[in-house]
């Protein structure tokens, strides 16, 4: 037994012979917020996709609670994916649906909620991200920040055990970053378990329980924010922080 919500053990993953993850282990406890930083190509996004059960791992294992889910068949996985919320860099809102339908569709198709219940719950969650009045707008008609907030509501409405964010603000105009970070900060304060790939260091410092540095498919350093920023142990981390700040 373990109290970790999400766990990766010695995960390896390669694409076409290119080793993207080379033995990554990670444990995310209930209510923890882990922020992952690292250069592009270091395997951050791939790690998140493995945690979200979107990619099969080559070796190692991914656990949700006490259940090992990596290696299971596609049919079984589909149901478990809804227990982990995923937010993407490019929002990936369904272009053919209104904001409300984006938030409702999985409640109907996956959770099998009746239409009225799904709608009620979706509106409640749109309200939580401050977009109740945009319910009938299509993604094309929303700003990037609004789209990302709808995407967060879409993931939250499934009541996931953990939320994964893959560079949620890096496709946004600068003045729209704040509104998304505010929503995420609110979530963290509410006790949501989160793994966030982001280079918003102020946010990381503020909200994270620990910060992880990835390089070349490995986690090379993990520490609480104060320690991580004031006294990074690895030379690679120091060089990276100097470039990002």
């Amino acid at each position, binding site marked *: 037994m373990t109290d970790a919500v999400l766990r990766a053990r010695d995960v390896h993953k390669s694409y076409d012979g290119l080793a993207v993850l080379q033995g990554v282990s990670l444990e995310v406890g209930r209510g923890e917020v882990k922020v992952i930083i690292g250069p592009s190509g270091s395997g951050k996004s791939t790690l998140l996709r493995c945690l979200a059960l979107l990619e099969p791992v080559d070796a190692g294992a991914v656990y949700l609670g006490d259940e090992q889910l990596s290696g299971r068949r596609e049919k079984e996985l589909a149901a478990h994916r809804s227990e982990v919320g995923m937010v*993407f860099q490019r929002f990936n809102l369904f272009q*053919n649906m209104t904001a409300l339908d984006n938030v409702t569709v*999985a409640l109907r198709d996956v959770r099998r909620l009746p239409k009225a219940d799904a709608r009620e719950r979706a509106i409640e969650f749109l309200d939580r991200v401050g977009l109740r009045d945009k319910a009938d707008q299509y993604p094309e008609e929303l700003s990037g920040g609004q789209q990302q907030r709808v995407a967060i509501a879409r*993931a939250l409405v499934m009541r996931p055990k953990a939320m994964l964010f893959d560079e949620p603000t890096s496709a946004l105009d600068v003045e729209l970053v704040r509104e998304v970070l505010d929503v995420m900060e609110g979530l963290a304060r509410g006790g949501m378990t989160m793994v966030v790939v982001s280079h918003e260091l102020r946010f990381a410092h503020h909200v994270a329980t620990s910060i992880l540095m990835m390089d070349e498919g490995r986690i090379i350093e993990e520490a609480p924010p104060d320690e991580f920023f004031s006294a990074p142990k690895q030379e690679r981390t120091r060089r990276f922080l100097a470039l990002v700040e």
Partner: protein
Amino acid sequence: MVASFDTHIFWEVLRSGPYWRGALLAIGLTCSSLGAACLIGFPLALGRSSRLFVVRFFAFLYSWFFRATPTLLLLLIVWDVFPQIWGVFAHNWYTPFFAAFIALSLNEAAYMGEIIRAGLLAVDPGQELAARALGMKRWQILRRVVVPQAVRIVIPPTGNEFITLLKLTSLASVISVHELLTSANEQASIKFSYQEVYGAALVYYLVMVSILMFLQSRLERRFTFRSRARRAPAQLSVPVAHDAR
């Protein structure tokens, strides 16, 4: 001496029974064949990217065979050869119209398969990824997310196919389907008033294609994913600007 255009003959031909029937036959044959072609083309399109080699191979074989076979030859084979091979076709119910429907459907399905495949491929892969992350199953993702977005992409080339097919129906005259152009030819050989007879046929084709183009633009608008309030002004904006006289 140039023969003058006789409007009386023109109107008479335009309203004549054979023309009406010919036009209805052409439209009926086109609509039914295109409909069947879409139904066959969709699984063909999916088959082209199947995980199973046999399915991929069959889908490829179909597309290769029916695109390589001339439509005229296929019509003759379906009408003349099918009844010789299979007894079921050697009965009264096997009309020229039905044979033409089979031949044009089989032929057109190969083209529609390619068009639908291109449409499915053109949908942003991020859409499917987001749907998978929510726990939706393959068929749900296709039905709710991918197909509605592919439809928008597929409409314009399908409109082209409709027009091509409408004109191709005249080939069915070789198996004695009395569609519009066959009727026009017969009228011409009876009346020797080529201008009026062919002019009337031209009017029919122009009207049929105009109706199609109107319906197509309606359909395209339906699959443009914007809220109603925003859809209308976008269309009015140009004329309004010029009306300020």
